[in-house]
């Protein structure tokens, strides 16, 4: 666009027509009627009025924010989330709010109170979740980039299933202020984009210390794309979870892809980490406890809908969380889970002494079919198992497409994890992979 090859008008025309075409995918909970007007006023700003899809759990001033929950169906915030504000200041425009699992409780977008989103790559399949709407928005070309949030997999898993790039920053890199809270101790807002370069650019604009969120880090924000093109020569990469039995089939597809890193001069070797199955227990207990507390404010006194409008997933989580925090049980569950969480932290610290980066599959397999969540109370936890260990300790992670199945048009994702605050290193590796392989069609243009 800067080279005047394409105008803002043309971009909005394209996006509008893609939105019209993809209506039945149920990607957006609501569209911003004034997006185009706002865009025309952005002038020379860094994001120059580009249309960005924003997950509907980010508060956006004057624009309905539902978290895909019936209880908040009519909620119009009088304030912007910090990230929405920063996006606006950089010249990004909210094109619409994207669908998610209600309250971000899920990994399929099927539990949305406003119906599931379909995977643009294959309409019989789920987009993953909870940022399924945002990943689908990017995959369907209905925006140029999107924002999601991840608590344990909610950016990387839908990005993997939709064959796009998803970046979960270090916990505390990006402010949570104004984002409908799910599990406060792990919620991390981040970009979902077409390319690694776009992810780095968007992350640059939304990162940093926020006076409204005391869990944001005071560390200076580095230039995330500065070392992006440096390649991976000499980097030591550890492959995690290659011994987990249920991953056998997917690993067969992943392992040849990792040769790319070796060809580019990095070393890759399998390494044993703490069994990710343990993370499911930790995550489930901590997350349910925090959910039960964070949803306590939706009492029915405000927002116009009473608690009968809470969906069954939310109810289940509230009940489980309430139970694990109850007197006599808290020690057995919550406190115990926090101890195991510390073990994971120590395990990663040890791994990062030996490796610059760790990689794994983003998801055990390809996107599941519509309806797959039915009767599967732990659906999300199993799908997110490989991402939960790094999420519960706050590490950054990046999903990039690393394989496409010709028959189904569905993707596998590679999860690249870095030590705390080292997002730039995984961006560097992700970019190198993207350039050296053919899986990401956008990275070539």
């Amino acid at each position, binding site marked *: 666009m800067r080279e005047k090859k394409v105008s803002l008008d043309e971009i909005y025309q394209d996006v509008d027509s893609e939105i019209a075409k993809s209506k039945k995918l149920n990607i957006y909970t609501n569209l911003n009627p004034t997006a185009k007007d706002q865009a025309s006023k952005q002038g020379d700003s860094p994001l120059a009025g580009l249309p960005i899809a924003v997950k509907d759990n980010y508060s956006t001033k004057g624009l309905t924010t539902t978290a895909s929950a019936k209880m908040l169906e009519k909620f119009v915030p009088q*304030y912007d989330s910090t990230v929405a504000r920063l996006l606006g200041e950089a010249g990004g425009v909210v094109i619409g709010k994207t669908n998610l699992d209600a309250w971000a409780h899920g990994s399929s977008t099927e539990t949305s109170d406003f119906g599931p989103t379909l995977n643009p790559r294959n309409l019989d399949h789920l987009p993953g979740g909870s940022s399924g709407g945002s990943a689908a928005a990017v995959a369907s070309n209905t925006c140029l980039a999107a924002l999601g949030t991840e608590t344990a997999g909610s950016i990387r898993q839908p990005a993997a299933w939709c064959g796009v790039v998803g970046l979960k920053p270090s916990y505390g890199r990006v402010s949570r202020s104004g984002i409908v*809270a799910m599990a406060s101790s792990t919620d991390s807002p981040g970009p979902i984009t077409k390319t690694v370069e776009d992810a780095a650019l968007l992350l640059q604009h939304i990162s940093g210390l926020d006076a409204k969120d*005391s869990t944001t880090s005071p560390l200076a924000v580095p230039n995330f794309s500065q070392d992006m093109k440096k390649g991976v020569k000499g980097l030591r990469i550890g492959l995690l979870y290659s011994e987990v039995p249920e991953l056998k089939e997917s690993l067969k597809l992943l392992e040849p892809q990792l040769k790319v890193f070796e060809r580019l001069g990095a070393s890759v070797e399998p390494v044993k980490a703490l069994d990710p199955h343990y993370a499911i227990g930790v995550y489930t207990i901590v997350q349910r406890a925090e959910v039960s507390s964070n949803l306590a404010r939706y*009492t029915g006194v405000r927002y116009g809908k009473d608690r009968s409008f809470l969906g069954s997933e939310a109810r289940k989580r509230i009940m489980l969380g309430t139970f694990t925090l109850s007197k006599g049980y808290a020690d057995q569950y919550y406190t115990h889970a926090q101890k195991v969480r510390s073990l994971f932290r120590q395990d990663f610290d040890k791994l990062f002494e030996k490796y610059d980066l760790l990689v794994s599959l983003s998801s055990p397999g390809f996107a599941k079919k519509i309806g797959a969540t039915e009767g599967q109370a732990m659906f999300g936890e199993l799908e997110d198992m490989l991402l939960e260990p790094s999420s519960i300790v706050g590490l950054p992670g990046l999903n990039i497409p690393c394989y496409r199945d010709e028959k189904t048009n569905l993707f596998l994702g590679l999860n690249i994890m870095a030590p705390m605050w080292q997002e730039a290193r995984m961006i560097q590796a992700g970019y190198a992979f993207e350039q050296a392989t053919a899986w990401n069609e956008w990275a070539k243009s």
Partner: protein
Amino acid sequence: MTNKSKYQLICGLEIHAELKTKSKMFCSCKNDPFGADKPNIHTCPVCLGMPGGLPVANKKAIEWTIKLGLALNCKINLFSKFDRKHYFYPDLPKGYQISQYDIPFCEGGWVETSQGRVEITRVHLEEDTGKLLHKEIDGKKVSLVDFNRGGVPLIEIVTEPDIKSANQAKEFGKKLRQIIRYLEIGNCNMEQGGMRLEANVSLTSDGKLPDYKTEVKNINSFRFLEQAIEYETERQTKLLDKGESPVQETRGFDATKGSTFSQRVKETAADYRYFPDPDLPPIRFAKEDIERLQVGLPELPEQIQARWQEEYGLDQEVTNLLVTTSSRSELLEEVWQIAQKNETNLKKITVWIINNLELLTPTTWADQIFGKYMDQTKTTQIDESELIKVVKQVFENNPQETARYKAGEKKLLGFFIGQVKKIVGNKADAKQIIDAID
């Protein structure tokens, strides 16, 4: 009363006091619930508990809590944190209150009273709730919520069950209030709810802690605190005399009847499902931080009164009147030092100050006050013999009243002061006139 009884009172207090920081505990809203002319004007997404609102702790409030803890001889925890306390009430917008559970800022202090030491279990910091108003609008009964108070920093002071009489409870409460006011961290305005009292009351016949206690709430004055404890003592004595055991319950205090009434009987302990608030990182202090606060702590009311009596030869009544806040004490001492340098009568200037207390504002300087005193006394002060003449004249003009006064009708003193004032105006103050009349 309890002394004569065969039962001994066992009483502990839980006292809440609002801190007068500029902003609220976890957001930047103005902390001024009583100055607000409309409901819900000092509010934001954080203190209204709107989606995505996150708390950010007020550092000043934390510092003040520790200051109070130090003044109450507490141990300060170098590692502390905030916890969520869950319960439902319409004045609690998040469904939980941010409070402190197992690691309060301050633990294990004490306050001396004339009837013995009262141990402080803990001092912790939390947020106040909103306020419910039950009204009738257009013939319909409605409940309204005002969140101007929601999120105001609130300290809770919990004592051990060391209090042995209603009178001691009152003395303790007053001392605590004096300390909070003296540290200039809270106004403790009881009528407005700036300080709220709860008493846990039980009786023992063998000195051991009994297996019940009644918790008396809604007490908003020290007199009522005394009344409530006395009433409870009497009520429980009657029950025990009949061989019954008082039940564990929460009771309210009815100020008009001077009695308590049952509010709710606790069958099981409430489960608040406490857990560390993930929105607020734990708080760590260096030893030096606490030492710095300890060093910066002003001389406390009791010590400063004793020293003033000793150093400046002032009466206890006078020092009682003057010891209110630490900055005022500093100002007064500066005035006295100037007065001493200028060889001015210390007692006279102190009496003059007591009559002109409004001059002691945070923006006045000691030499301004001294200058004002010198101006008023030098240029306009009537001299003593002149004043006695006027008094004599007033006596002569009012023979009947003079006779009655001399016969012992002391309430006429005011009448005479008024008469003298009419003549001398501001050239003499009441104290001087009284001296002259005598």
